[in-house]
């Protein structure tokens, strides 16, 4: 058995990485905090054109039939870029479940999701449809049947909203709902890994550049140890995310447990890294004009979304005992 990503999976990642480096630099994330819909603008269309948004749709309905394993590295990159879009909700959770994903694959229809907790969905006020749950079934609510009450969020781009609805189309049973929930938790875990990498990259560069007492602050043990702790947490979380992606893709009966282990550790790694990198930046880390907070706040939101670390630990516990 070969435990490594395929050449195609690496090529997909590199293509999306290049795209996001050009179309979603921090300035785009920052602009999404202030603009009308909280979204990226050009990056979404470019991802659609590349074939990313419809990649998880079955081939029978015009998709590429790619698995979660094919998409996990890409999802990690969307986290690294803090892409201000409902990427996980749309491309990972909704697209594989939609009866006709044509418009969603083209990016002209945006689908968000609220599953497994309070009926709160990111980008609820502007999405064309919401994938959610009703009596344990997976349902789709279209814009016309949706009521949204905006809720302020810590991440200025996510635009969460409480949703309620009068009518919904049933897309699947409890099994489909559980699978969608696992795809969401796994996607959030992958984005958290990407965010953790980004916060570390920013901070490693900063502590090499910032001098105090005549030396870069990164040469001091008190700084090095914090970043080493964060890096260690990242390296423990990342393989679990990749393993969970494999389990979901092959239909391993333990996949839900693997997803929970991944989400718990990825949430912890990102939360720890947010704290450590904030400290290493000193007062700079708090400034709105500096980029760190864009990634830190996204990490806080995603650590709590799709089940926080405690909820997923509890699920692992129930499976073990």
């Amino acid at each position: 058995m070969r435990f490594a990503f395929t050449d195609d999976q690496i090529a997909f990642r590199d293509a999306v990485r290049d795209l996001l480096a050009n179309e979603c630099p921090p300035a785009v994330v920052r602009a999404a905090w202030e603009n009308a819909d909280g979204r990226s603008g050009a990056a979404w269309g470019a991802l659609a054109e590349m074939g990313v948004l419809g990649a998880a749709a079955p081939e029978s309905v015009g998709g590429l039939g790619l698995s979660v394993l094919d998409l996990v590295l890409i999802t990690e990159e969307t986290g690294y870029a803090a892409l201000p879009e409902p990427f996980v909700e749309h491309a990972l959770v909704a697209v594989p479940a939609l009866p006709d994903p044509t418009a969603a694959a083209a990016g002209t229809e945006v689908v968000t999701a609220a599953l497994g907790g309070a009926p709160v969905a990111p980008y609820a006020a502007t999405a064309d449809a919401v994938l959610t749950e009703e009596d344990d079934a997976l349902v789709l609510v279209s814009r016309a049947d949706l009521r949204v009450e905006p809720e302020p969020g810590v991440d200025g781009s996510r635009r969460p909203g409480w949703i309620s609805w009068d009518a919904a189309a049933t897309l699947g049973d409890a099994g489909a709902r559980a699978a969608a929930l696992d795809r969401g938790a796994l996607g959030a875990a992958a984005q958290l890994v990407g965010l953790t990498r980004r916060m570390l990259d920013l901070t490693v560069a900063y502590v090499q550049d910032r001098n105090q007492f005549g030396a870069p602050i990164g040469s001091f043990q008190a700084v090095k140890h914090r970043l080493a702790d964060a890096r260690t947490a990242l390296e423990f979380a990342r393989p679990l995310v990749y393993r969970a992606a494999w389990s979901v893709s092959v239909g391993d009966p333990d996949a839900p447990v693997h997803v929970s282990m991944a989400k718990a550790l990825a949430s912890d790694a990102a939360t720890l890294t947010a704290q450590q990198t904030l400290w290493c930046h000193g007062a700079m880390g708090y400034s709105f004009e500096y980029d760190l907070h864009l990634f830190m706040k996204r990490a806080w939101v995603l650590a709590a979304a799709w089940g926080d670390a405690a909820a997923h630990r509890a699920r692992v516990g129930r499976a073990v005992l």
Partner: protein
Amino acid sequence: MHVVVCVKQIPDPAVPGELDPGTHALKREGKLILDESDSYGVEMALQLVDKAGGGEVTLVSMAPNGEVSGLRTALAMGAAKAILVSDDALAGSDALSTAKVLAKAVERAGSVDLVLAATESSDGYTGTTPAQMAELLGWPSLTFAKQVDVAGGTVTVQRQTEAGYDVVEATLPAVVSVTAGVVEPRYPSFKGIMAAKNKPVDTVTAADLGLAADAVGWAGARQRITQVAPAPAREAGERIEDDGESFQRVVAYLEDLKVV
């Protein structure tokens, strides 16, 4: 229309490069990627073929160890096939030897209307290979093209100059070198990436192309790197205390650079 694009696969510029202490040549053992300056030629070729209403784009490349990573990127963008010349005998080739190899590879590609190349590679910067190739092929050479149009057996380019551009034309077939930024290279699509691995790559040696071993590589090189030295460290800038008139110094400085 059949367009050939010369693409170079180079060590990732994000990774610090190393020179071989014996030969002063760039070490090229690791994974190679598509030279970004060549992505413009690939995009231009794809657009020209589209505009012509049919035809295909063939890549030619010369790289050690049968390396195809960079070719796959260009194939994923939409090129139809590639000819890769990979041969230990080619190590140490100078620009002219490279041009001999690429010219032979172009001949192997069959009936060709147009050859596109970057103005220069991002790791070698000699900037002479396209013109040398044209001479070896006996075809016209147009350089520094910032816009390329093909119509009725003629290629017309806007040739970048310091003051603006010249419009020059040549009969086909011709070799045209394009400047970076002429077009916006497309992102490879997922479908393109998946299709790329099934596209044909014709891997050949120097002998397959009819080149004698002593015409290429270290044996054939007419150019020797005799010495290398690290780039000088950046010098400190000039500090000016602002007395209310320092803007004039800034203007004078920019005038010196001929920026204003």
